[in-house]
């Protein structure tokens, strides 16, 4: 079967895939995307561009995806359902395809009450499952009104799941619904505690989809606590937080920060090791937004170099 993207090709060929996230700038600086892409393009197979995470406005994800292509890498463009209605989504998908974007990843989107623009009017015209259906519909050659398209977009569709979200049975059904709406690959929320992820994967494996396990390296206990409190769907076990604390104990200043970061890298490496051995996990997705420099180190030390050609 013909594959549309490298990401798809590698997954279908059975390679263990590495993707990493670039957070678009909070402003118009296009060089930031290119610099960050350059930093990690040799260490991963595709670069994800997030879409206004938590309702904090950042550069348009299709524009940033285009910049990733210009920098010589393959983008995975995120699309959040939160801020778009179906008219805008159809329009954005035409544009994304025209800019050369082929990998799309649909998320529902964290509620904007959690971000910096809580005053915004919410859209939520559709959820991520219905967004996938819209994308698939366009790929069949007509828009939602049935009008024939002037140029039919083609995409490799993906979405997300959070193995720590409840209720687990219903969350697994949602993965199935996403698959049935066209999603072929999935990225997970950051994995820390392994047994719940394993349990979730038991439900996902029969669905025959590709899964990239999410990895967010921790800089220290403060970041871990902040994430547990403020980032929806994150569950970092208390033991892990005390491990970071212990790593820094007795030290101060830069030495303390470095010791804790090193421990965070160790934890991330252990997590990568653990998820690699779970049947049905086809790769990892590193989300080190604001700490992009760590991506090459992680990939290298996890023994995932060189990346397949």
């Amino acid at each position: 079967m013909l594959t549309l993207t490298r990401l798809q090709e590698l997954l279908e060929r059975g390679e263990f895939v590495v993707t990493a996230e670039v957070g678009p700038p909070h402003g118009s600086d296009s060089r930031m995307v290119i610099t960050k892409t350059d930093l990690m393009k040799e260490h991963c197979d595709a670069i994800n561009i997030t879409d206004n995470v938590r309702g904090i406005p950042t550069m348009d994800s299709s524009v940033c995806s285009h910049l990733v292509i210009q920098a010589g890498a393959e983008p995975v463009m995120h699309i959040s359902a939160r801020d778009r209605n179906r008219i805008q989504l159809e329009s954005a998908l035409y544009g994304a395809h025209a800019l050369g974007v082929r990998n799309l990843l649909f998320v529902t989107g964290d509620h904007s009450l959690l971000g910096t623009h809580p005053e915004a009017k919410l859209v939520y015209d559709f959820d991520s499952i219905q967004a996938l259906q819209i994308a698939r519909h366009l790929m069949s050659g007509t828009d939602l009104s049935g009008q024939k398209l002037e140029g039919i977009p083609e995409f490799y569709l993906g979405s997300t799941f959070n193995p720590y979200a409840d209720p687990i049975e219903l969350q697994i059904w949602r993965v199935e619904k996403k698959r049935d709406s066209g999603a072929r690959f999935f990225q997970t929320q950051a994995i820390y505690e392994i047994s719940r992820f394993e349990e979730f994967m038991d439900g996902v494996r029969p669905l025959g989809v590709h899964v990239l396990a999410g990895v967010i390296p921790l800089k220290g206990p403060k970041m871990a606590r902040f994430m547990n409190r403020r980032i929806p769907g994150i569950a970092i076990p208390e033991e892990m937080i005390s491990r970071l604390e212990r790593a820094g104990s007795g030290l101060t200043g830069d030495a303390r920060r470095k010791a804790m970061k090193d421990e965070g890298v160790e934890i991330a490496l252990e997590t990568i090791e653990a998820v690699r051995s779970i049947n049905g996990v086809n790769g990892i997705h590193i989300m080190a937004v604001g700490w992009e420099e760590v991506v090459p180190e992680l990939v290298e030390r996890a023994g995932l170099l060189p990346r397949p050609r």
Partner: protein
Amino acid sequence: MIAMELKPIKEILQMLEGYEKIVLFGDSGCAQMCDVGGILQLEDMEELLSSHGKIVLGYVFVEGGICDGNAFKLSVANKMHMLEEADAYLVQACGVATQVVTEALPAKEAFPATNTQFLGSMPERFMHYEKCSMCGDCVLHLTGGICPITRCPKGLLNGPCGGAMNGKCEVNPEQDCAWQLIYDRLKALGKLDNIRKIWDLRDWSPTHKPRKIEVTGDSMMS
């Protein structure tokens, strides 16, 4: 019922600046149940406005709701003299009420004393919880009597989102995840199949404003 709150008194005084003789409007429906426009609150408002140099000429208190055209007409019929003498009207009921007064008595301006909030339940006095967004195409028969459009902050139809943990909502950890409630209830009813299937893209056109219902004799229950 329509849940509403009184506006801050400062804002009410600002709107009434330059108007001296005021008539207050309230009703025994939602306005009274929300403790903004019952007789007691009209009395409180009279006292308050008087202490700021206004003259309250009297009240129009509608049994039922100001929104009910007939009830409204009956309530104002013998008060036309007072209404003509007034400089302005202050409506201690919902936004519908202020517009009904505006349309029925256009010679004077009617001002809103409340912020109208939502359609909710009142398990006890002073407690109001939003339950319905008037979507125009009710799905409660499929969701175990729990409204996802209103009680899930994202209005998801294929919920829950990935932020739902331990039965709580990502937006507010004090709040139950509506989809967890729906799941538990449908499970108890043996109807989980209702949410196992994909809910297709929804037609939101029934929510387009302004909406109206005009029932003719033969379209009812036919």
